[in-house]
């Protein structure tokens, strides 16, 4: 095991049970996050990104589903096995998460100041006055103007961007070692998106936290990622350093994503991942063989027989039977530009 490794997820499986169906939202997912690094988790809507994030935090509601297998090793401790008390001590403190929808994640009946301060009170020995002072400093830090007054505002009194900043302030309050950001910019408009990204980047520089960033947006990935994890239908289908993924994608799905983007390095505009033609499969009723086969232009021998295993060469993993031939036949998208 690597000295710099902060988080290692091993063979994680999370299933949701609804209406008698078993939705395999996370299926045999393994990856690791090094200290201070940024790992981007990309995949289209419904591919299991949020389910992966919530499984890491062991926050899958029992009424909805279960983590049926796997390990989540954070600094060597399995978050799925440790005592509830130890788990609470880590959450919000060493590991923090920013939710996809700030509008519904913040509690409507408490002030922003209170929602930040309660994390401090829970994890740091500090009284109400100190917590409030720190909460104000945090709001200042995330760029909320007039922080003193904003402390006493309720979530509904803030704009979407402000709410996201407040959630970031809450997340960094205890200086986490790992920050999981679940599409933190999807609900925001473009200029605010850029500001939030900048803020997260600066905070990462400042605090040295590792960032697990979930997104749809490949232009963001190109800018911030160290490593990229591509998910399809609950599985990791490709994983590698950002350069490997963008310059030499191996898996047809990843290639499809990149081809759908007109200019990667110019970073001007980006299309969403939905641009790969066809629809994602039903996670309760996956096709035989490779899940991507119904949409795959390269499908060939054996693709309908079994699920390809994740194959790793040069720290670049791919789940595809034919990636060697595909790479040899077709030029990678970057070369075509």
């Amino acid at each position, binding site marked *: 095991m690597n000295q710099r490794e902060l988080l290692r997820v091993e063979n994680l499986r999370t299933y949701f049970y609804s209406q008698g169906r078993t939705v395999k939202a996370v299926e045999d997912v393994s990856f690791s996050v090094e200290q201070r690094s940024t790992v981007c988790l990309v995949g289209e809507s419904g591919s299991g990104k949020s389910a992966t994030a919530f499984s890491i935090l062991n926050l899958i509601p029992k009424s909805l589903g279960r983590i049926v297998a796997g390990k989540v090793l954070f600094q060597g401790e399995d978050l799925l096995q440790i005592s509830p008390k130890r788990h609470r001590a880590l959450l919000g403190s060493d590991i923090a998460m920013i939710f996809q929808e700030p509008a519904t994640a913040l509690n409507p009946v408490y002030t922003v100041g209170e929602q930040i301060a309660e994390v401090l009170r829970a994890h740091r020995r500090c009284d109400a006055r100190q917590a409030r002072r720190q909460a104000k400093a945090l709001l200042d830090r995330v760029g909320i103007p007039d922080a003193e007054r904003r402390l006493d505002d309720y979530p*509904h009194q803030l704009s979407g961007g402000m709410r996201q900043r407040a959630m970031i302030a809450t997340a960094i309050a205890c200086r986490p070692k790992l920050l999981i950001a679940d599409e933190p910019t999807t609900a925001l408009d473009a200029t605010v998106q850029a500001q939030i990204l900048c803020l997260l980047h600066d905070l990462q520089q400042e605090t040295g936290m590792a960032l697990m960033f979930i997104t749809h947006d490949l232009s963001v990935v190109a800018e911030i990622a160290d490593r990229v994890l591509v998910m399809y239908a609950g599985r990791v289908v490709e994983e590698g350093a950002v350069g490997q993924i963008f310059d030499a994608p191996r898996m047809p799905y990843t290639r499809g994503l990149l081809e759908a983007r007109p200019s990667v390095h110019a970073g001007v505009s980006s299309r969403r991942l939905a641009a790969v033609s066809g629809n994602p499969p039903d996670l309760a009723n996956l096709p035989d063989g490779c899940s991507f086969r119904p949409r795959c232009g390269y499908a060939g021998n054996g693709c309908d027989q079994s699920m390809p295993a994740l194959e790793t060469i040069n720290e670049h993993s791919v789940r595809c039977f034919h990636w060697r031939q595909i790479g040899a036949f077709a030029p990678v998208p970057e070369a075509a530009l």
Partner: protein
Amino acid sequence: MFFLSRALRSALTLWAIVSVVFVATRLTGDPTYYLMPAEMPEQQRVELREKLGLNDDIATQYLRYGKALVRADFGRSFFSNRPVADLFFERVPNTLLLTIPAFLLSVAMGLCGGIWAALRHNSLFDRALTTATVVMQALPNFAVGIAAILIFSLSLRLLPSGGMGTWKHMVLPVITLALASSANIAHLVRSSMLEVLAQDYMRYARSKGLSPAVVVLKHGLRNAILPVLTILGLQFGGLVAGAVVTETVFAWPGVGRLVIDAVMKRDFAVLQFGILMFSTAIILANLVVDLAYGLLDPRVRGK
């Protein structure tokens, strides 16, 4: 503006209630039959009616009553000849001795039962509670009271069946009174809490590493209580109605029994005053609830 229209509506409601009661009582009975033996000569009966002002036509009586009300003169009991307000208010403490513990008990049981059922959704406890609340809501108060007397007083001889005195006298009526409204509250807390537990902010609260008690009570209950609050006003009405029945069943000398006696004996002034006070109390309770709602929900407060 809000208060003005609200006060106006409340006044109209009270006026309508008083009028209906006034007409209904006068159409349904003659107090002189209770004031003097049935075999008294008719002549004396007419004289007594004349003296009580019951021979005038109903419009005249109504006007007279209205004028007196404006002067805050609520009339006297036909029987004791004491001012009705005195009769009523001297019994209020007895009723509060029943209703306040019953209210607190029903809120406590309703909250605990509802929260626990929601946290253990679909468990045996949840299903038992749901069934029990449906049964409790359907059972009339007097049936519960009589059953309680049969079991705990007559069979087991544990508690007195009626009257007032020691704390033992309070047990059965308080529980009888509390059961129905605790069932209502538990039912509501449960469904409201179930909805809240599924909200994103609950998972967010857990992701901050807060303790389960803080997550459920501070983040959950505080939101789940809002829809419950709106029916607490109604519950208060139910409690008043329940008190009338319960006091009668347990021979408890409170305002409920005063009013029931007044109905039986056609003691018009007492009955009218009782109904007026009950209605006022219910209207005030609903006002308090609305104010509390405004205080507890920042989204409403802002507007």
